[in-house]
């Protein structure tokens, strides 16, 4: 970490190896598009490299990286106005026989349901279930109190439960 802060490319590559996959997965779950997730992942690491001198060592590195990831994903959604389209797409998919055939489609159904909730709720779900963060870690990444983390998670899950029921997946 210290070597990366000094601009050591090899050290930065080590960080990249460690965080590339979780960052890509988080971006994908936020965006539901592999090309967008790839582009956001690239942007995240370029920003990390460019702003390493602004990293506060008092905070844990992952929380900084994940925060950039979620912010970039949300910015991407805003810029590309994909969210409205995705919401329409997922609403169109609805329930039906296709949704009930196989684990892969169940996964798609869950992802589709995820895309129907607000990005602030999706972010806590991604942090908890994709990145495996605890309440306190989510609090650190999003810079919100733990109590708010809990309430957002609860609301997000209730919304997802409704969507999954509508899709016949629960």
């Amino acid at each position: 970490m210290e070597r990366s802060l000094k601009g050591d490319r090899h050290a930065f590559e080590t960080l990249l190896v460690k965080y590339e996959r979780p960052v890509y997965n988080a971006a994908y779950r936020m965006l539901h598009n592999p090309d967008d997730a790839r582009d956001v992942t690239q942007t995240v690491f370029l920003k990390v490299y460019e702003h390493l001198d602004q990293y506060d060592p008092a905070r844990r590195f992952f929380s900084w990286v994940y925060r950039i990831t979620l912010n970039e994903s949300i910015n991407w959604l805003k810029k590309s106005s994909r969210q409205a389209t995705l919401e329409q797409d997922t609403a169109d998919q609805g329930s039906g026989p296709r949704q009930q055939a196989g684990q892969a489609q169940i996964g798609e159904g869950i992802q589709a349901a995820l895309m129907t909730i607000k990005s602030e709720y999706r972010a806590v779900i991604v942090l908890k279930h994709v990145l495996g963060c605890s309440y306190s870690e989510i609090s650190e990444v999003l810079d919100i109190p733990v109590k708010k983390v809990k309430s957002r998670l609860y609301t997000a899950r209730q919304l997802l439960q409704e969507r999954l029921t509508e899709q016949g997946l629960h």
Partner: protein
Amino acid sequence: MAIDPKYVELINADIDGEISSADRAAFEAFIADSPEAQALHAELSAVHASLDSLPELDSPPHLKHTIMASIPEQNEGARSTPGAFLQTLFAAPALRYTAVFAAGSVLTLSLVSSDIVSQGAFDDMTGLVGTISDQIPQGPSIQTTPIESKDIAGTVTLHSSGPILIVDFDLVSSGPVDIVASYVDKKVWFNGFAQLESPGVSVSAESGRITMQIDGKRRYALYLHNAGDRDITIHLQFTSNGEAVYDTDIEYVQPGHSG
């Protein structure tokens, strides 16, 4: 009957494995006597399990290399230089070609000697300075060819704009790679080469043969003058350390000739 918010929080904490030992006894006593709480616990547990079942995805091949090739070569001193900043802009996928070129001065146009470049071709080239994105048609490309090998990856896309054929290279290499674009039609000539200002890219051209060398992530365009709107096949040969690592053909067929 609504469940006391305190116990809703404990139900969530239990599902998330974050319930404290101090709260556990109270939680278990409550849920044992509350069918509503049991139902909520079951519903939320099912959602939790569904979300945990989402598969972990592999990141795209070459992504790490693409990122590494995009960051400045030097340490933090380089990070603050305009060149490093522009290089990062170039790498930022959201900006792509258009935004970068809109910055104007970041573009350099490399005209290289060719034994058959005409004055007319030069006139065309001056119009391309700083407006490459405009010169690449916004409509569908004629052909996009993926390049995939351990030494080089990316895409080569062919566009047409009037008499100009534009070969748009978006590539990343793991080291120096020579690219030879060759074609046999003597009435199609090399019209120019455009790239971002960046080290490690060179180009030379002779009749029917254009040689480029890249190292790292690069995006650039070759311009071919095809005044007669002729069908043309361009052979691309990629070489690393003297060994052929990939080759492919891209083809332009004038409208009405295909099929």
